[in-house]
């Protein structure tokens, strides 16, 4: 039935006649929902997946794609709804059960053991045995065959740490395809691949399709989706927007479907374009591995947005500017050159960076609020060697008042605050160092709508006070709602700029995902 090398088939996946296969779905998801605590990440998704069909799932970051995949492949269990296969309703507790039923997920991240060989990784946890010992020779032979089939020349004896990222991805795919499966799910498989490697992967997927295997394909690269998908399903905010025949949609259509929605009155009114003189100038900045040759300016009283998919290099770019990552290039603040190799120098010069990782890099969760508040402004706040506790307490009282931080008492630890209040504390901390340029990475990640609106208002207030603001966000509506201008990054470069009426979600999405320039807003690719 298959030209794919099949190793220990245990026959648990029922063999169905080829004719039935074509009509009957491999897997049917009915009213699938998933909630994490009070947050609904996926609601009421119904979808049929047919054999021999490449079915693409697209959506913005946070639309629920990954959650959906995890539910299908047994990594998470739905809070409501059901999955059914040919014999009726199935329930997977753990990915092993899904794999026994013939469903496998190829992860986006590389999950291989660096110190083991390619062959050892392929068979990890399911080693072939002969006479009670591990049968290395057979495993190496089968690994070589499998990899050759996928077009990889990598040796089965090579250590995984010594092979390229693309080869690792192929090893991971080979591992998933080692058994015969009925549904293979690819989560952003081409994120780390380049030109030829992408082509090879796409041909592997077409080969799977020829073998009547169903393929679910998640990708941000709309051009690939357009080329190979038989069907395209769009998710938005955890809901299914629709399923369309692949060839009926242009990339523009897809972008529109991914984002189209009204902007709520969540955002403060934009100040009439009063952008003043240049505050921050970044010239030819590169952060090895993440961002290449980036040049841009931020003006006084301006909110500049940075859009792009996860992994486009936005966060790393600003970490480079802040001296938190090795970087090359020039940064000037109000005409004065800044040392980009020291976080202290950047903060002292007047750049504040609010990290996207509030809990991991922003706040000391085990500490009280006052030490957190003053941590990046210790010198400013406590000149000389000693600490001024009373000043610190006064500053905390002021910050609590000014940023409306809700708390039970001033003595709580930072970790005891809610996400929104932690974010406000973090904002207060960054602003205590009196920056003239404030960079806010994911200003509203994981916080509720009321706090969101407040944070937008605070950002607005900052630019009214004459500061310059940079907002990095994966939520396009947020950027469009508050920014005067948006730079879109893609694969470590600035793909384009949109402002004014061109600032629409599909223009941004298009720049972020494909080479096609939007309508007329090609912007300055500077």
């Amino acid at each position, binding site marked *: 039935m298959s030209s794919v090398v099949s190793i220990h088939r245990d026959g648990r996946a029922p063999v169905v006649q080829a004719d039935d296969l074509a009509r009957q779905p491999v897997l049917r998801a009915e009213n699938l929902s998933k909630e994490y605590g009070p947050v609904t990440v996926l609601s009421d998704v119904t979808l049929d997946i047919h054999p021999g069909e490449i079915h693409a799932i697209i959506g913005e970051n946070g639309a629920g794609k990954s959650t959906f995949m995890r539910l299908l492949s047994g990594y998470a269990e739905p809070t409501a709804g059901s999955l059914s296969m040919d014999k009726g309703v199935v329930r997977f507790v753990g990915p092993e059960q899904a794999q026994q039923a013939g469903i496998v997920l190829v992860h986006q991240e590389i999950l291989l053991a660096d110190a083991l060989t390619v062959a050892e990784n392929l068979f990890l946890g399911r080693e072939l045995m002969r006479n009670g010992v591990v049968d290395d020779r057979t495993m190496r032979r089968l690994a070589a065959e499998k990899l050759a089939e996928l077009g990889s020349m990598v040796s089965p004896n090579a250590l995984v740490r010594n092979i390229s990222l693309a080869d690792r991805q192929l090893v991971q795919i080979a591992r998933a395809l080692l058994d015969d499966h009925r549904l293979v799910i690819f989560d952003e498989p081409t994120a780390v691949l380049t030109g030829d490697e992408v082509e090879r992967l796409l041909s592997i997927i077409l080969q799977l399709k020829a073998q009547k295997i169903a393929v679910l394909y998640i990708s941000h690269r709309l051009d690939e989706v357009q080329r190979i998908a038989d069907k395209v399903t769009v998710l938005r905010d955890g809901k299914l927007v629709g399923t369309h025949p692949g060839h009926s949609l242009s990339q523009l259509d897809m972008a529109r479907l991914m984002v189209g929605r009204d902007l709520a009155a969540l955002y403060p009114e934009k100040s009439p374009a009063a952008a003043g003189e240049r505050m921050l100038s970044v010239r030819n900045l590169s952060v090895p591995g993440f961002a290449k040759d980036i040049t841009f300016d931020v003006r006084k009283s301006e909110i500049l947005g940075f859009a792009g998919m996860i992994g486009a290099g936005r966060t790393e770019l600003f970490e480079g500017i802040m001296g*938190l990552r090795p970087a090359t290039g020039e940064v000037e603040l109000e005409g004065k050159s800044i040392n980009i190799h020291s976080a*202290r120098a950047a*903060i002292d010069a007047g750049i504040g960076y609010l990290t996207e990782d509030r809990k*991991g890099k922003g*706040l*000391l969760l085990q500490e009280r609020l006052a*030490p957190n508040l003053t941590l990046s402004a*210790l010198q400013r706040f406590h000149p000389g060697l000693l600490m001024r506790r009373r000043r610190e307490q006064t500053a905390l009282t002021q910050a609590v008042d000014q940023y409306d931080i*809700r708390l039970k008492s001033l003595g709580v630890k930072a970790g005891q605050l809610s996400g929104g209040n932690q974010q406000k504390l973090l904002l207060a901390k960054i602003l205590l160092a009196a920056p003239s340029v404030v960079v806010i990475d994911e200003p509203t990640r994981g916080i509720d709508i009321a706090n969101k609106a407040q944070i937008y208002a605070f950002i607005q207030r900052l630019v009214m006070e004459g500061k310059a603001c940079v907002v990095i966000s994966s939520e396009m509506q947020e950027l469009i709602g508050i920014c005067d201008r948006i730079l879109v990054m893609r694969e470590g470069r600035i793909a384009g700029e949109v402002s004014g009426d061109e600032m629409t979600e599909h223009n941004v999405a298009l720049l972020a995902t494909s080479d096609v320039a939007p309508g007329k807003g090609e912007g300055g690719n500077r």
Partner: protein
Amino acid sequence: MTVITGSTPVKPEREWNIGWADVGPFVALIALLAIGFAVNPDFLSATNLGNVITRSAFIAIIAVGATFVISSGGLDLSVGSMAAFITGITIMFMNRMAPDWGVSAIPAGMVVAIAVGLLCGLMNGIIVTVGKIEPFIATLGTMGIFRALITYMSDGGTIPIDRTLRDAYRPVYFGTIAGIPLPILISIAVAVVASFILYKMKYGRKCAAVGANEDVARYSGISIIKTRTIAYAIQGACVAIAAICYVPRLGAATPTTGVLWELQVITAVVIGGTALRGGKGHVWGTVAGAVILELIANLMVLSDFVSEYLVAGVQGVIIIIAMLIQRFSK
């Protein structure tokens, strides 16, 4: 639950959130004294307690330094052999200068000791921070180096202090002020200075931040390298102070001076309430920890329950139990 809203003024109030880590060591200390009294009433005599606490002074002083290192997220295994090395250098320097300088060789030697201690600590710190080598490995290496140096310097034997200096130097260990042995006063002074640095100065704040979460500290513009290197240098200075007190006790340095002190020092810090993975340091807890260790050793000698040869074994058991408590109380 009262929620304070933006419009309500909040009174700056002093919070007294005292956790187990703050009081635990002192509770244990009192419990130990009670047990000791039950086992042998002599245990609580002023002479015995004075002796025990005096003996614990070396470990207490070094452990106060280790509180900085551990609080900042580091570890120093080299303290015992560093103490032996500094003792050796100090005695050799004093002996060389004694014929010319007479008794003033002693204070000069003390200055040399502190300088050597700072340098040794700085070296450890730079290897760990600039060299980016795991503190465990880096200080395991320097532990071997210092131990080899003292063995080499003493030719495998002893380096005794010059007879002419012995009497003048004696009071540093055996002397008292107002009836309190000098080593106890010195260790209290060291702890006072240390708690001032750790709790009243900016450096203490940085130290705890670096140990609690390196990333948060880095993103707040705090230099990890500087903060941690200073902690190692403070450790070196503390080792030197301990060495200065130690010289008159035996009047010599030998290749076995300070053997296994690192175990006692780290145990004292951990049972004192400072988390081994870094974060807030507990200076006075550390001092209590050092006294607890010496009391247990003393109790073993006085009680005849357990052979005193097993002292290090008991200390090993204590550090493991303390770590288990830290792990499971989270």
